[in-house]
Each structure stands twice: as C-alpha cells, then as structure tokens.
C-alpha cells in the first residue's frame, strides 16, 4: 500500500516538475509547482514526517503558491518568448546533467546495502521530537534565520521603491 502510494506520488512529483519547465505560460508553470509541492507533502507523510507534511501543505502549497499566482495574474504576464539558448548550454549542460544524475544513482545503488532500508510508514516523528531539535540543538540557526528574512525584506523594499525625481 505504502509502496504504491510512493510510486504514484513520486511519479506525479517528477511529472509536475517536468511540466513546470516545459510550459510556456507562467500560470501553467505555477499550477504545476502546486502539484510538485503537494505530492512532496505526501512523500514526507509516507516517511513519517507528519508535521513537515502539514507545514508543506499550509506554507508552500497554500500561502506561497497563492502569492505566486496572484503576482503572476496581477502582472498579467504573457507567454514566454522561446529563445534558442546558447549552443554551449546544450553541448555541455545536458551531458553534464546526465553524468551527474548517473553518478549519484551509481553511488546510491552501490551503497544501498550500507545505507540500509527504512520501512515506509513504520514510524512517526512526533512534533515533540521535532521541537527538541528545532528549539534546542539548532536554536541558533533558527534564530539567525530572522536576520535572513530581514535582509530579504530590506532588499525587496530597496529594489521595488519608485524612483523619485
């Protein structure tokens, strides 16, 4: 049952990601991103990360994607012009990506015994365990993230401000 769910949503996730790249209209890309985010949430749930799955749905599929689609619609963005891209990107980029993927696949497969296997859906990470890590062991990175968000806000204000003359 878990394995079937994994293959369905894993496949959906990859298909959504591919569609995101291939679509030429931004709104279609944004909608496929919602598919990617939601199927990722199911994968997290299968791995026993229930809190993460819920947060993924609420924050990513919900809040962030709503904002994305709003912005795209408000800007009234049209279809993208298709450029041919550079020859170097085709000559080096695709083989490079293929080599990287096969190298990683080789490493994961050849180490599959040492990596061990986990039963899908066998355990659940409780919210208590999670908060122990987040608010105790990793308290500092958690707090410092606020500086990161502050920088992003400051930058958005600076770059989006209307020119005064």
């Amino acid at each position, binding site marked *: 049952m878990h394995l079937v769910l994994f293959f369905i949503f894993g496949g959906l996730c990859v298909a959504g990601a591919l569609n995101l790249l291939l679509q030429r209209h931004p709104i279609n890309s944004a909608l496929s991103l919602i598919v990617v985010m939601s199927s990722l949430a199911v994968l997290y749930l299968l791995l026993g990360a229930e809190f993460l799955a819920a947060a993924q749905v609420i924050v990513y599929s919900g809040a962030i994607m709503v904002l994305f689609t709003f912005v795209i619609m408000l800007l009234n963005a049209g279809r993208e012009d298709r450029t041919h891209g550079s020859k170097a990107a085709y000559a080096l980029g695709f083989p490079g990506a293929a080599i990287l993927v096969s190298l990683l696949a080789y490493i994961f497969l050849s180490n599959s015994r040492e990596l061990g296997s986990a039963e899908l859906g066998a355990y659940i990470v409780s919210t208590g365990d999670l908060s122990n890590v987040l608010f105790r062991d990793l308290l500092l990175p958690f707090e410092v993230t606020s500086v990161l968000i502050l*920088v992003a806000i400051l930058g958005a204000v600076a770059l989006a401000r209307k020119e005064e003359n």
Partner: protein
Amino acid sequence: MNTVPQIFRILPEVILTVTGVLIMLIEPVMPKSASRKSMGWLSVLGTLAALGASLWQYQLPVGTAYFGTIQTDAFSVFFHVLICSIVLVSLLAAISSAPREMDTLGEYFGLVVFGAVGMLFMTSAVELLVVFIGLEISSISTYILAAFRRKSAKGPEAGIKYLLLGSFATAFFLYGIAMLFGATGTTVISQIADRLGSSHLPLLAVAGLGMILIGIGFKVSAAPFQVWTPDVYEGSPSPVVGLMSTAPKAAAFAVLLRILYGALPTLHEYWVPLLWWLSALSMTVGNLGALRQRNVKRLLAYSSIAHAGYLLAAFTALSADGIAAASFYAVTYAAMNVGIFAVVSYAGGYDDRLTLIEDYRGLAYRAPVMGGAMAFFLMSLIGIPFTGGFFGKFYVFSAALHSGFLWLGIIGLLNSGIGAFYYLRLIAALYSKPSEAAPLNQIPRPSFALLLGVFLTVAATLILGIVPGRVLAMAKAGAATFYSVSASK
C-alpha cells in the same frame, strides 16, 4: 569552560545586527531632505564596535556555545577581524562615492551591515546548518547590492545573473551537506571527522565533498565556476564590488578550510587533487581572460579569479603552514583589492564615469595621491617585493612546494608573469599624458572618508609587505586550532 556567557561568543554578530536594526528604525524618520550619509557613519561605528568585540574575544578561552554550533578560537577571531576591516573600508568608499540624493542609501548601509553578520557567522560556525544560513545571509545581501544601480541596464542584469547562478550553486552546497549528513548522521564539523573514520559510506561522503566544492567554488569564483564574475562586477556599483570580491570570499575560504581540515581530513586523497585542478584552472583562466579586457572592472574581475586560484594552491599543502598561508593570502588580497576598488569608486564614481583602461589615462596627474595609491595596489597585485602581495604569493607557493607540488608552483609562477603584463598596462595608462577631452576632468576632490579608507588599505598592504611577522603569527595561531582540537580528541 562554560563560565563564559554564551552571548559573548556571538557578540560581534549581535552588535552588527543591532546596528542594522537601528539603521532601519532611524532612516525612515529622518527628514526627507537630510543626507543619509549619517547612516553610513552609524554603520562605520557599529563595524568598529564589532571589530573591537572580535579582538576582545581573543582572550576568551576556546569553546563552543549554543549547543556546539558556534566556536570562538584564534581562527574565527582572525577572520572576524579581517571581515570587519574589509566592511569598514568599503563603507568608507561607499560614503564618499554614493550620490547624495540617492533614495536607497539607508537600505544600502543596512544591507552591508546585515551581510557582514552572515559572513561573521560563517567563520565562527562549527555546524553546517549555521554555515549555510550565514552563507545565505551574505549571498542574498550581495545579490541585492549588485542590482543597486537600477537606472542603468547593467545593474539589474548583474543582480539577476548573480541571483540565478548563486542560488543554483547554493543548492549544490546544501545537497552536499545533506549527503555528509547521510554518510555520518551529523552536521557538527568535529563529529563528522570522528564518525567518518568508522563510516561505511565513504563514497557518499566523497559525493558530498564534491557538491560542497562546487558550491564554495562558485562563491569564491574559482574556475570552472567563474562565468558570472566579469558581468556581475561590471554591472555592480564599484564600492559593492570592492566588498563582494573580498569579504564573502574570505568567509567562504574560511568555511572551506573548516570543512576540509576540520571535517574531512581523512578524505584528503580525494580533495587534494581536486583543489590542485581548481587552483591551476583558476589561475590560468583568470590571467588569460584578463589579457583581453579593455574594461577596468572586468579586468579586475578576471584578476580576482586568478587570485582565488593562487589562494587555493595553499590548500593542497595539508599542513598548518598551508592553512596559515591561505589565511595570510586572504588578508593581503583583501587589503589590495578593497583599496583598488575604493580608488575605482572615487575615480569612476558610483555610476562608472570611467570604464575603459584608456579612460584612466593620466589619473596620476589629475589626482596624484589616488593615482599613486592605485599604482601601488597594482604593484601589490603583481607581487612586487615590499608589498603584501609578494609575501602572500611567497607563502602560498612555498607551502605548495613543500608538499611536493612542483608543477603547481611552476604554473603559478608562469601565471604571475602573465599577470604582470596586464597590471603594468594599467599602471602605464595611469602615468601617461591625459588627452584634453578626457572624462577625468569631472573628478571631484577626494573626501575625508575616501582618504581614510585608502590610507588604511595602503598602510595594511605596506605593513604586510615589510613586517608580515605579526599577521603571519596570528594566521599560524588560527591554523594551530585545527590541530590542537583534533589532537585532544
């Protein structure tokens, strides 16, 4: 050991964060017509306080805080002082060259200060997630600063290019951290080193190492991850380039030293050849690329790629001397590069009045002090004796040669020769007779802030070239922390 209050271990970062928040609070309530340069002086004060706090941290006992995520030791203090000094000079350059009526000047200083917080966290972090967050803070603030000249077409182009490629590289870095976690089950640097010995997954750790090298290679603009550098440097305001070509790079080199020597010393047979190639490629690509440039900022961009290559050569040495040489080179490179961009932002102004080498003809006649300082920095970049650049190169290549990398030394020497050619071309332009209609005629008198900044960097470059002993001893003390920590375990 735990008698030191934890907050003392992150004091410089806290001071800078408070400074940034103060700027954000004061700037909006200032009268509209008031110059925002006072915010610049406020951030200078904050940086000075952070510099003092870093020096003060030196007498604290070595130790970690916040559940082993932050460590203050001679190494972190060394890089804290370096980064604060770089930020100080580039703030002075920005104060003197930014146009008075610029409406986003307050945000500019705020972003510089917050970016410095990220860089300081990168150098004192001993846990990879803190490293990552620090890296993101420093990167995102530089992406935004790169796009600050919104009116010129090149400004947003620089920002977008830097953002897209930079985020791509950051993803590699994060994936590398995830793989190291998969191989060892921890993200604490010292524990990675301990568990790697008994790990059954060395191959996964090697893959993680490769990913991390790609990510850091991009941040320090080492070839073959250097493609973004010339475009971004050309489009960004000159005081920003002075900052981003030195401070985030110094922080990234510190991270690389901590990861390679602190977490992955057992994998050195994998990473030494990789760094050999990164170093040789960066030197060659940087110097050959610079030969063809007519634009001064693009030329300096390629020169910074070459210097990243020189610095990486020290990593192959696998000894405390190598770490010390890399740290020392980071200091000398920072002094001369921040200095030269302070002069460029004075002569070219915020909006790049001067771009080509020909535009700089006769700068030494119109502005003798500034022209002379620029020529001095160029000589240091070549590596002429009695400048910091000479000792920097000397230590780096003697460290590489001691470990038997003869060819790396030869490639470095050949590259220094090529480098001398294009640096001398620029010096010759500075001292040749200016043509009558030169854009040089609009050059203003150097302001106090600029004179102070250039004086500090010239003095630093001179001191590093004549009496390098003190700084080298500090770099060696920093390097020794790696070996004492691993020995005591």
